[in-house]
Structure formats: structure tokens, C-alpha cells
């Protein structure tokens, strides 16, 4: 998706990031005194969700740059921290929660990097193993096209020994990462899916082979890697396809480079169903056997989730027995039936991931509390 309009918050017009983005993104720009102007222009479009992907709003993050991932106590949460560098995404995935998460959804990039660095320094100063990712409210690497975000963040994390940064993406935009000193503190990770899902449900994203190619490049540059099979989508023939993706992954990537692999099946707030039906009329993903989860989200019926997880875990373990595989937002029953253990057996999921991050990212063991 191409950005066609740049909105600039009057308060940040003179920020170096703003000046840089403006010069790199040669599109009409408008300086606004209040965000309402941007939101209204998006809301009045025929498809506000699509419109929000074409307009980029440069502004200040007035809230926290580092936030706890909004997990739920009904399912096992990984204890992740979100680095809130921007919001929304110019790629267009049918199942993307961001379509209904922001009202209205507008591509926003926060340019008050002084505040961002202060927030990070406060986290670093806690000297506690922390996994921080920028790929929750947006894709971590879409910003590479117009900003120097990675060359700001990666060296910052490289200069400390308690926190790992995870850059999660569906792009192949990794060239800028090549020459950066990362000291293994940045994990570059990809969301993986079958060719069918990428083709039908993930518009404007990189192909599977392009993602794996980019991952291989990052591995060659010494970056630790991670992969997320999330959302796993159940359809006729999906097992064969997912097995193929696992095989492709390990054909290209040495398991030793992988910090973790997460698995999560498709889940969505009920309100997203209408949006998917309207915006992706050919998509069939909402017609699976869903039930209302304990967190109010629609989830596949539990035995279906267990079955696909069980297969995935076995396929991954056949290729990479030592890679840490974990489930995103599942309960102990699902863990036990698909993984053969529950997180509490190993000190809890958060602890398992912290230890793995410490091991793979050369973090200080003193940070494990």
C-alpha cells in the first residue's frame, strides 16, 4: 500500500524525524493543529480502514512508550512488553485486530524519540530481563522505508545487557539492519503462514520465500531470529501446507539461530467478523468452528486447536528439537495435550522465555529474578 498523504501534528513539525520523513516520503503534506482533522478525513472515506493505511500521521506519543502486553488471566500470557513506536500498518491482513482496535485506525508514527529513549533507559535501568517488541500495534519493519527507527533502536539495545528487542514483521525490509551493531540484543522475527493464507488473507505482505530469505540474511548478520506461526488458520489441507512451511523454514534457517517459535491459532473479537466479511468478501476464515473464548474473543473449538498445535509441535521438534516452542494465549489443558507439559513445570512461560532470551541474546543472568 502506498502512502498518499502525510499529516503532521503542528507540535512536531520541527522534530528531526519529521523533517527526515518529509524529505523521504514525497507526498502532499498537511500540518494539523489537532488529531481530529486526520481522524475525520479518514472516517469520511468509503473504507476508513483502507484510508487509514494510506495516510501517515506524524505526531507525539502522549502516552507510555513501553506498555505491558494486554494479556488475560484466563490464558497463559508470555509477559511481553510492547514498545509503542507507532500504530497501525499499511499492509492489509484480513484477520488483523488493528482494523477494529483503533477508532478510527490511522497509520501513526511517533516522532518524539527523545521521550522514547528516556522510556527505554528507564527499562534498561531496572536491570531485569525484559522482552520488548514493537510489532504488536504495528509491524516493526514497515517504518524502514521512511525512517531510521531500527538504526535508533538496535544500537540502543546493543549498549545494555538486560533487555531484548524483538522486531516482528511480515516484510522483507531488512537491508538497513545489515551494518548495525546489535550485539545479539535484537531478535528479528517473522510471522509465517502458508502460501494460501499469505495469498488470500495477507495483502501487500512479503511472500513466504521473501520472508525466509530476509530471515536468512539477518541470520548471516548474526541476529538471533524468532518465528511466529500466528495465526494458524484451519482449512482443508492446512496440515500438509503448515508442514511444508515448517520444512521450508528449516531448509533455510539453522535452528541454532532461532530463539523461539510461537504458535497461536486464529482468534478475533466478534466485531472483527463483520469487518472481515465486508472488506474481504472472498475470505473464508471466519467460517471455522469458533466458540467464544474466556476472554470474549472467538477461538477455534479447543480440540481443533490442540490437534493443529500437536502436529506443529511434532513437525518443529523433528527438525529442531532444542528450539523453544510456546503457545500464545492458551490454557494448561491445551499446553498439556499439545506440548506434553505445562509452563508451570518450567517456572512459568514468562520465565522460560526470559531464560531463553538471556541465553540467546547474551543478556546478563543477573537480570533473571
Amino acid at each position: 500500500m502506498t502512502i498518499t498523504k502525510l499529516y503532521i501534528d503542528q507540535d512536531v513539525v520541527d522534530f528531526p524525524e519529521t523533517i527526515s520523513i518529509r524529505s523521504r516520503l514525497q507526498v502532499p503534506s498537511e500540518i494539523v493543529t489537532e488529531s481530529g482533522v486526520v481522524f475525520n478525513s479518514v472516517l469520511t472515506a468509503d473504507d476508513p480502514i483502507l484510508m487509514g493505511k494510506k495516510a501517515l500521521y506524524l505526531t507525539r506519543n502522549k502516552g507510555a512508550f513501553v506498555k505491558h502486553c494486554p494479556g488475560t488471566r484466563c490464558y497463559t500470557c508470555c509477559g511481553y512488553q510492547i514498545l509503542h513506536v507507532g500504530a497501525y500498518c499499511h499492509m492489509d491482513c484480513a484477520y488483523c485486530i488493528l482494523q477494529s482496535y483503533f477508532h478510527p485506525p490511522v497509520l501513526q508514527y511517533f516522532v518524539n524519540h527523545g521521550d522514547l529513549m528516556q522510556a527505554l533507559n528507564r527499562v534498561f535501568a531496572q536491570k531485569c530481563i525484559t522482552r520488548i517488541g514493537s510489532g504488536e500495534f504495528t509491524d516493526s519493519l514497515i517504518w524502514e522505508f521512511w525512517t531510521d527507527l531500527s538504526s535508533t533502536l538496535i544500537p540502543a539495545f546493543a549498549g545494555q545487557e538486560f533487555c531484548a528487542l524483538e522486531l516482528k514483521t511480515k516484510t522483507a525490509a531488512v537491508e538497513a539492519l545489515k551494518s548495525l551493531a546489535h550485539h545479539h540484543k535484537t531478535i528479528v522475527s517473522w510471522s509465517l503462514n502458508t502460501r494460501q493464507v499469505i495469498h488470500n488473507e495477507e495483502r501487500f505482505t512479503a511472500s513466504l520465500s521473501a520472508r525466509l530469505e530476509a530471515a536468512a540474511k539477518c541470520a548471516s548478520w548474526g541476529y538471533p531470529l524468532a518465528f511466529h506461526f500466528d495465526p494458524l488458520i484451519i482449512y482443508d489441507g492446512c496440515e500438509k501446507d503448515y508442514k511444508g512451511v515448517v520444512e521450508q523454514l528449516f531448509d533455510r534457517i539453522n535452528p541454532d539461530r532461532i530463539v523461539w517459535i510461537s504458535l497461536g491459532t486464529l482468534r478475533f473479537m466478534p466485531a472483527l467478523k463483520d469487518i472481515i466479511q465486508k472488506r474481504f468478501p472472498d475470505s473464508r476464515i471466519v467460517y471455522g468452528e469458533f466458540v467464544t473464548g474466556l476472554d470474549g474473543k472467538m477461538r477455534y473449538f479447543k480440540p481443533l486447536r490442540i490437534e493443529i498445535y500437536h502436529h506443529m509441535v511434532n513437525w518443529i521438534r523433528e527438525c529442531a528439537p532444542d528450539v523453544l516452542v510456546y503457545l500464545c494465549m492458551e490454557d494448561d489443558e491445551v499446553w498439556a495435550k499439545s506440548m506434553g507439559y505445562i509452563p508451570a513445570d518450567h517456572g512459568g512461560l514468562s520465565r522460560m522465555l526470559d531464560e531463553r532470551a538471556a541465553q540467546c541474546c547474551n543478556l546478563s543472568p543477573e537480570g533473571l529474578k
Partner: protein
Amino acid sequence: MVSESDGHSQFPAKRSFSQLIRSQRISLSAVNSEDKTYCITTDTDIRALAASIQQLGLIHPPVLKHLHSEYIIISGFRRIAACRQLGWSEISASVLRPDVDNETCALYAIADNSHQRPLNIVEISRSFFLLSANISDQTRQLMYASDLGLPAHRDHIKKIEKICRLPGRIQDAILNGAISFAIALELLKFETDIGIDLVKLFDQLKIGVNKQRELILLFEEIALREKIPLRALLNEADVRHILDDAELDRVQKGRRIKQYLRSRRFPLIINTITKFENLVSTLKLGDSVKLIPPKDFEGTTYTLRLQFRSHAELSELQSTLDNIIRNRDLKKFLPE
């Protein structure tokens, strides 16, 4: 449209209207009854009206418009049909001049109906359609609607206006109560034939709005999930078999159809529920004990409810509890 106003209503002043219309005798052979452009009424039964006209004469003359060599009907479709049925060759009518615009004709048509009797939902829809087809300014549409005694809320109008575009069979179903206004709006998203098939189904089953909505959703999602045409699904042998089963009454048919569709839409879920229900039935728990699974088997907490009125009754439940705990199939079913 004439521009003078009486200062209160949006309608043009009476003086202006009077210049547009005059009473005259018209030959019925010159009246085009096929042109239904301005027809508001849904009532096609003219027997009582014909009897009245025969006895008392045509008290209230229809409004016609002289157009080319004939007259089109603006209001009075039933009266003219009744007069034809009575074998009349000529009637008194109020005739609008040929240069009277469509907006004015629409106002005449609506006013002559809405000020005589309460309009049903299809008639209101036809009225709104006439207004929107002839008046582009939405604010004026709303003002006219209010003056004509129609609901004057924009969102309401938008919804109701669509009703008159539905096929006659579906409009009839709304009027005879087989489907609600809300369901009719849902049917708009389907092709005409599908909407009619669904209406026939609801008419046969006589089920309430919520069940109708559930069936629509099930049919629609099965068709999308299995990539088959919805109409083909509606007419599949399994569906027809239930509907044509002479042994079943309509309540049983409704229940069977729903069961069939649910088990096709959610095969594993329904299979699991059925397995659990069968398992519970083998436990022979009686009326005093209930074993309740977590909702949709998503949680992990099962509930066992015991009812007793005395210590003796509680003691009697001991053996039932032991049976439940010892049951191997249940043990397999429950999380470890």
C-alpha cells in the same frame, strides 16, 4: 413544482394547487391502470369497496394525470378497479394538468393515502420511495414526510425505503406477519430467488424472528464455508427430506432443520456435545443430579449439581457419585 408556500407547511399553497387540478368526467377506457408508479396501497381486495360504490356512488374521486393521450393514476387505484368491476364506463375524477411535475404527483399520491388511513410498512416504504425518487434534497424529503404523517427519521427512512424494492412475495410475507421488518432487511443481501425460498421456508415453519435469523446465518455460512450456492443448499435433498416429512409437525421440522444445519456448520462441536450428552445419559443420573460441562468445552471447570431435601436423600446420591467417578469414559473425557 409550484413555489408558493402557506408559511407553515412545506406543501405549496392551496391556491396554487387549485390551479393545477380540475374535476372532470373521464372515460375509464382512457385510464391506464397498468402504470403503478404512484401506487401506494397494498390492498388488492376490492369486493367491499365495489359494494360500497355500487350502493353510494364514488364519493371521493380518484386523482389522475393527463399524460399524452391517456390518464395515469395518481391515487385511487382500488376505486378505479372497483368501478371497472362494476362495469362503469365513465367516472368523475380530479385531473392534474399535464405539466404538473412528478414531485407534486408524488405528494398527491402519498397524501391521499396517508391522510385517509394508517399505512402499513410496505405502503410507507412506497411513500418514501416516491419521495426520494422525486425530491433530491434530503432535508425537504424529511419535512414532507413529517407533513404527510410518515416517520421522519433519516435512518428509519433509509431502512424502510428498501422494503418496496423486495419481491412481492417477500412484501406479502411482511404484511401477513410471516417475517419481520428486520428479517426482510436481512433478505435484501440475497438474490431474489434465495430471499423468496427463505420466506417460503419461514412461512412453512412459522418460527420466530430469532430462529429465522439463526437459520439465515446457518444457511449462509454453510454455503460460504462449503463454497456451494446458497440456493442449492436450500433445496438439497437432506433439507427437503425434513421439510417434506409428513410425519413431522412444523415445530419438529423447525427443530430438525436447525439441528441438521448446526451439525453441518459446526460438525466437531456438535459431535462433542452429542458425545457428552450420550455419556451423561449412560450414567443414569436421574433428576437429582446434573453434570454440566464448561460452556463450549472452552473452560476446564465442570459442574456437578446435586439436589436433595434430606440427609437420607443425600446418602442415596452417594452411589450415583461413585458411579460418576468410576466411569472410565467420563475419565477419558475430562482433562487430566
